[in-house]
């Protein structure tokens, strides 16, 4: 058990438990808080993977931006009534099927990891930490050279989304 593994298990457990609470809490604000916890735990996993820049992007964008938006909207749409209504619809069967299907995949992943054709992949040691250093510079360079076009498209998409959101939420159209 080194610090790497400890932090992984800690953040993974935190992420999974918070995620379960996100979908089971009755109150949307509580759900949002647990989602924040889950996202922060994911950020922790990114940090554990030495993806510092992504860690900070996750914190700033997801936690500081998107989740604030969520909390904001939850407070705008008064949920006093909604909280007392039935929270779950009757799709348990579908959910169960999906869970079983995905669970089967988990099993297969573990299974293949220990035997079978893909074992080599799973036994591949991770690249040395230095391969991705310095992290933010590498991502920056990559974004502005290799991924220039997707980057521009993403920014245009953000612009469109912004305009769309403004149009949607405007008082009286």
């Amino acid at each position: 058990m080194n610090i790497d593994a400890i932090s992984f298990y800690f953040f993974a457990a935190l992420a999974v438990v918070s995620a379960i609470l996100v979908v089971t809490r009755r109150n949307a604000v509580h759900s949002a808080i647990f989602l924040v916890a889950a996202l922060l735990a994911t950020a922790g996993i990114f940090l554990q993977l030495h993806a510092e820049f992504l860690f900070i992007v996750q914190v700033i964008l997801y936690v500081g931006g998107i989740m604030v938006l969520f909390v904001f909207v939850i407070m705008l749409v008064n949920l006093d009534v909604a909280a007392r209504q039935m929270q779950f619809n009757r799709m348990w069967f579908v959910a169960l099927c999906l869970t079983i299907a995905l669970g089967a995949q988990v099993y297969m992943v573990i299974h293949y990891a220990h035997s079978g054709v893909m074992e080599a992949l799973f036994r591949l040691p991770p690249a040395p930490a230095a391969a991705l250093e310095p992290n933010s510079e590498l991502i920056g360079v990559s974004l502005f050279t290799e991924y220039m076009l997707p980057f521009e498209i993403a920014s245009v998409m953000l612009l469109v989304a912004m305009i769309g959101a403004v149009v949607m939420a405007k008082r009286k159209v």
Partner: protein
Amino acid sequence: MNDYLKTDGRAVDLSNEIDPVLDHSVDVETTVLGADEIIINMGPQHPSTHGVLRVKLKLDGEKVVGSECIIGYLHRGVEKIAEHRTYQQFAPYVDRMDYVAAVSNGLGYCEAVEKLMGVEAPPRARVIRTILTELQRIASHLVWLGTHALDIGALTPVFYCFREREEILKIFEKYCGARLTTHAFRIGGLQYEAYDELEADTERFCKDFETKVDEYETLLTENRIWIGRTKGIGVITAEDAIAIGATGPVIRASGIEWDIRKAAPYAAYDQYKFDIPTGKNGDTYDRYLVRMEEMRQSSRICLQAIQNIPTGPIMARIGKVLKPPPGEVYHAIEAPKGELGYYIVSDGTAQPYRVRIRPPSLINLQAFDTMVKGHLVADVVAIIGTLDIVLGEVDR
């Protein structure tokens, strides 16, 4: 509460009625999104309604589309009390109306009774009255400036204003022993002779005060935020102001040169040179400028008055028991907030048959609805401040 409103004779939609004592909050959900128009309630226990004014605002989002001022939380029946007191006994009561300008109230009442009796205060008394009243005008405007700026968020001017007001109150204290509700004048003149250093004190204060006003102006007049919060806010046109009967700085800021000190001079105002500042736009900023200039002019009047205080008696010859001849009289003075009028009916006894007071705050408050329409909730605070109302005077 509901009963009160019903007997009040106003049509009140009880479904929107909010208990004024317990709930003075904003209905948030509906403010931000919900239905088209909602009614919120400000006061009577609200830090910036200057006392116990209660305002019901009809809002469209954050925009005010209508308003109703509900007054009477400080009603003490001053006019009724007058009918059971002798003329002299009633004089201290008027100090409790506009308690930040008690001297002006007293002046109006004393002059009204003098007019009813057909006597006139001696020249010396009239000059001293003028000095003290003008000092009181400055003090009242200082309170207005401090609280108005505080409402808009400027924390510092209020301390400067109260520092200068303190000097004025010291002069009052030296003159008559009281600071706030002074009861400085008596019917027929003055009870107290001016103390020895009155001239010196007033001169020192007034000379000092010129620079102090400049100091306030450096803090506010050119300030972008102040301009943004006051220019174009709470506009009332000259026609509207006349129709409502607004007086004082409110009407002068709309461009009407109406000042009773010039229109129907009383006390010793006809002896002194002073200007009537007027505005053009009738907005909060102009009212601010007008009041600032008025403070300068008041100081100018004081400086002229102390140059030449006539000698002689300070009390006209009137009896111990005042029994004015039957009849009626209306006398108005220019109080700091506008035209303060006393209408007194005498039936020949020692007690007035009826005293009706025309408080400037009440009449000016009528302009509130016109001013506030189309502005945001945050501006309501500024508009209440700019009207310079004192609830003690509104409710009496």
